[in-house]
C-alpha cells in the first residue's frame, strides 16, 4: 500500500516533458516534489500564475504571490501572471496538458464527484468543474477506499457530480487504473497489494487482463 507521497511519486511518472500541469489541492500538490529534474514542466495555478516554483524561504513570502490553495509561493524564470478569465481560457481552451486532482468518488465511465456531500457544509467547487469539463487528460489521485473502508471506485457515483465521463486515469494507494469503455482497467498494483485485494476494494467493474505488474516507484 502506498502513502500519500507514494501516490504522488507514482503520478509524477505521468508528467511528461513539455507538459503544462494543473495540480489540485491535497495529494496532487505533492506531485511537484517528485517530477524528474531532467524534463521541462510548468505548473499552472488557476488563481493566475504559470511557472510556479517552490515555497519561499522564511521571510521572503509575498502576500501578493500565492497559489490556488492560498499558500505563499515563488515563481521560476519564464513565469507569468494573468487574470482569472485568462487563467480559465488556458484551462477551457485545452492548453493545459494534464490536470491532477483528488476525488471522493469516481465511476466506471469516468464521472467524478469531489465537491459536495449532501447534509454537510459545502465549500464549493472552486475551479474543479472547469478543470474536469475541459482537460484533455485528467488523473485522479485518491485513496482507494474512504475512511469507512468503502470503495471510492463505483459503478455510479452517489455524491453530486463535479463532471461527467472525464477521468482518464486513477492512481490510488492500491493501484493504477485506466477508465476504458467497460470499466476500471487495472494497470498496476501497489507494492505488496494483490489483485484479489484490489478486486475486493473496487465496487465498480474491475477489468483484469493478463499479468498485472507491481508499480515501479
Amino acid at each position, binding site marked *: 500500500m502506498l502513502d500519500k507521497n507514494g501516490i504522488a511519486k507514482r503520478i509524477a511518472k505521468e508528467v511528461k516533458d513539455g507538459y503544462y500541469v494543473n495540480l489540485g489541492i491535497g495529494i496532487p500538490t505533492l506531485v511537484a516534489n517528485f517530477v524528474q529534474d531532467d524534463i521541462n514542466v510548468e505548473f499552472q495555478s488557476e*488563481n493566475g500564475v504559470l511557472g510556479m516554483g517552490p515555497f519561499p524561504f522564511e521571510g521572503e513570502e509575498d502576500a*501578493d504571490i*500565492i497559489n490556488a*490553495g492560498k499558500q505563499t509561493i515563488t515563481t521560476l524564470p519564464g513565469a507569468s*501572471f494573468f487574470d482569472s478569465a485568462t487563467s480559465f481560457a488556458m484551462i477551457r481552451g485545452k492548453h493545459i496538458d494534464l490536470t491532477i486532482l483528488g476525488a471522493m468518488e469516481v465511476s466506471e465511465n469516468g464521472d467524478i464527484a469531489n465537491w459536495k456531500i449532501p447534509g454537510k457544509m459545502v465549500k*464549493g*467547487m472552486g475551479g474543479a*468543474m472547469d478543470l474536469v469539463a*475541459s482537460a484533455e487528460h485528467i488523473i485522479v489521485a485518491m485513496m482507494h477506499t474512504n475512511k469507512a473502508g468503502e470503495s471510492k471506485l463505483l459503478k455510479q457515483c452517489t455524491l*453530486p457530480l463535479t463532471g461527467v465521463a472525464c477521468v482518464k486515469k486513477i492512481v490510488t494507494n492500491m493501484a493504477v487504473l485506466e477508465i476504458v469503455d467497460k470499466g476500471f482497467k487495472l494497470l498496476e498494483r501497489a507494492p505488496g497489494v494483490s489483485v484479489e485485494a484490489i478486486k475486493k476494494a473496487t465496487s465498480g467493474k474491475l477489468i483484469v487482463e493478463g499479468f498485472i505488474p507491481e508499480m515501479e516507484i
Partner: protein
Amino acid sequence: MIPKTVNNVQEALKGVKDGMTLMLGGFGLCGIPENAIAELVRLGVSDLCCISNNAGVDDFGLGLLLQKRQIRKMISSYVGENDEFERQMLSGELEVELTPQGTLAEKCRAAQAGFPAFYTPAGFGTEVAIGKETRDFNGKMYVLEAAFKADFSFVKAWKGDEAGNLIFKGTARNFNPCMCGAATITVAEVEELVPAGSLDPNGIHIPGIFVQRIFQGKDYEKRIEQLTTRSRI
C-alpha cells in the same frame, strides 16, 4: 485625459445602497479591496448580494460584512475557511450560489464586454446546470450562463493613475481586471496613485475607461491565509 480620482473611500462609495449587487475582486484574501470593505462595514448597508470568488475569513475580508449580517446572498466558487459563513448558510440566513470559478470569471468578463451570455462546458451534467439551457457544439455539451448584472464593482490594484488606468501585482490580479467595467460603477483602490502619464501606456492591465472612480488606498494589511515556507538548506 478624463480624471477619475476621488479624494477618499467615502467619496468612492457614494451611492451604495441597501439591496445592491456588488462585485468584489480578490482570491482568498489576496488582492481584496480592503478599504472598500471597511467602508461598507462603516456604512452599514445591508441586504447585499456579493459576487466574489471567496467569502473571506471570520475576521477579515468579506467575513467582516458577514459578521454584521450585511450580506443577503453570496455568489462564489469556494467559501471555506469561515465559521460565521458556515453558520449563516446552514441556518438559512444566508443565500449562497456556488458557481464554477471559470464561469464566475467569464460572467464578469461577459458583463464587461457586452456579451449577454456564453456557453461553457463547466458544470454540464452536474447540479450547476439544472434549469439552464444546454447545447451540443461539435459533439461536446455546453451550459448557457448569463452575464452578471451588478451595481458596483470594487477592485484593488497595485498602481493606478488619475485616468483610472490600473496595474496589478502578482496573483493579486485574479478577478480584479475581469470585474472592471462589469458593474454600473467600478471603484478602484490602489496602493500607489500616480499622475496621468506616469505609467507606460503599453503596460496598462486595465484601461481607465473601465473605471469610474479611483482613490489612494491606505493601511493595507494584506493578510496571508496560508503562510507556507521552506527551510533554508
